[in-house]
């Protein structure tokens, strides 16, 4: 799985496997310690930071691709009722399939690489992104559309210049949920292909050494919260007219 050396450490009565055991400090060799900052600082460069960056990339790519697909699908669905129903049904079925099972089903076709993981992650973003975009487009008040028409706008202009802008809060709310969900699902993906922070979680999950687990889990949580905060800020800059409490 991983290139790092796993070292078997006899501690107390039982033996413990410490993944990525490099420089042992007193904290690491003590079985009582719950969390070792010394391990975190000595493994930040070689292990934690690359995992964090890889995780960030996985998430950003999946949400970006999912957003483009969902936006196009929502624009089509806005005019085609049957397409809306079909896409909604398909994406909610996809959303309910356990992530890990989905990766395992796609893997025979696309291999055990990044492609499989991204396919799965994109699939899981679709439902939330599509539903929120479509709801946003459809909840524009008829009075606004009438006035846009009265100003001489074409249907296309109304869609792109009026409806899409008024739908921004709903769309951003969808992107926020999709992004934090993807950060979580990407950790599970590491069970199939060792990637990102999930790799560190799975490396440490059967070990008695808890620091790696807590550090990787904590970083995943911080990454999700940071993504969420950045998206809230982005909405304030891109669409200052949109109320933040609207969802």
């Amino acid at each position, binding site marked *: 799985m991983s290139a790092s050396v796993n070292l078997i450490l006899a501690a107390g009565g039982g033996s413990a496997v410490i993944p990525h055991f490099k420089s042992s400090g007193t904290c690491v060799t003590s079985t009582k310690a*719950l*969390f070792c900052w010394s391990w975190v600082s000595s493994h930040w460069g070689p292990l934690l930071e690359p995992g964090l960056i890889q995780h960030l990339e996985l998430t950003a790519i999946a949400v970006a691709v999912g957003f483009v697909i969902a936006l196009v699908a929502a624009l089509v669905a806005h005019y085609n009722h049957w397409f809306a129903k079909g896409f909604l049904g398909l994406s909610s*079925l996809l*959303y*309910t*399939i*356990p992530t*890990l*099972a989905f990766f*395992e*089903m796609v893997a*025979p076709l696309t291999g055990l690489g990044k492609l499989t993981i991204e396919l799965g992650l994109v699939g899981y973003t679709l439902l939330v992104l599509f539903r929120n975009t479509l*709801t946003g487009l*459809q909840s524009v008040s008829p009075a606004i559309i009438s006035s846009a028409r009265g100003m001489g706008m074409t249907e296309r202009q109304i869609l792109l210049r009026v409806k899409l802008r008024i739908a921004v809060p709903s769309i951003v709310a969808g992107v*926020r*949920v999709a992004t*934090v*969900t993807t*950060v*979580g*699902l990407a*950790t*599970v993906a590491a*069970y199939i292909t060792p990637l990102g*922070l*999930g790799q560190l*979680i799975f490396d*440490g*999950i059967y070990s008695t050494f*808890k*620091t790696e*687990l*807590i550090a*990787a*889990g*904590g970083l*995943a*949580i911080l990454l*999700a*919260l940071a*993504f*969420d905060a950045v998206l809230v800020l982005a909405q304030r800059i891109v669409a200052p007219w949109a109320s933040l*409490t609207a*969802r």
Partner: protein
Amino acid sequence: MVLIRALQFIVDHPHLILPKAGSQLLLSGAALGVALGVGLPIGMVTGHLRRWSAGAFAISSALRALPTLAIIAIGIGLYGLGFVNIMVALAILGIPPILTNTYVAVSSVPAATVQAARGLGMRPWQVLLAVELPNAIPLILGGVRTASVYIIATAYLASFAGTDATLGSVITNEGAYGLAGVIGATIVILILAFGIEALLALCQHLLTPRGLRRGVRLALEGSAA
């Protein structure tokens, strides 16, 4: 072809599938119960007071941002493997939809309705329990339905939290059960999730006060159109 083998797997292994499906439901039910116990009171009180909405939404979005596997991982460090570990992780998954929906449902009961209840001499807790809650039931149960689907579909992660009782033990062990087993377990999970959701939809209909049913149906059609 694979689908047929997956269905064959379910038929051939009832003693494997059924108990695991049963305990997956029990685990999910327990987690949903905890999520209700946390989400409902907070949503009801903040919704009734029509205050602290920012706080209620902040709790929801913060909990929503917690990756389930990360909670399991940190939980292993803090309180160990086992039932409690996976239940905490699943309950956290269920709280945001319940909390948000309850707040929105209770706080959006028409002001005129609440004032009429006050005018009849009802105390604040009577207004909440006898007027706001029945009016809010449809939307609250909508949140419970969403939460139940999330929880049932994610309960397979129990295998990583140290319990092999759920169908996750099949999904995480493709080496032993093959792709047919994985897909078979997935089909069972989908049936459980959508089955429970349908059951809750029925409850939603039955628990909705009769006077509201027509209005609710119209509102739902309006939002889905």
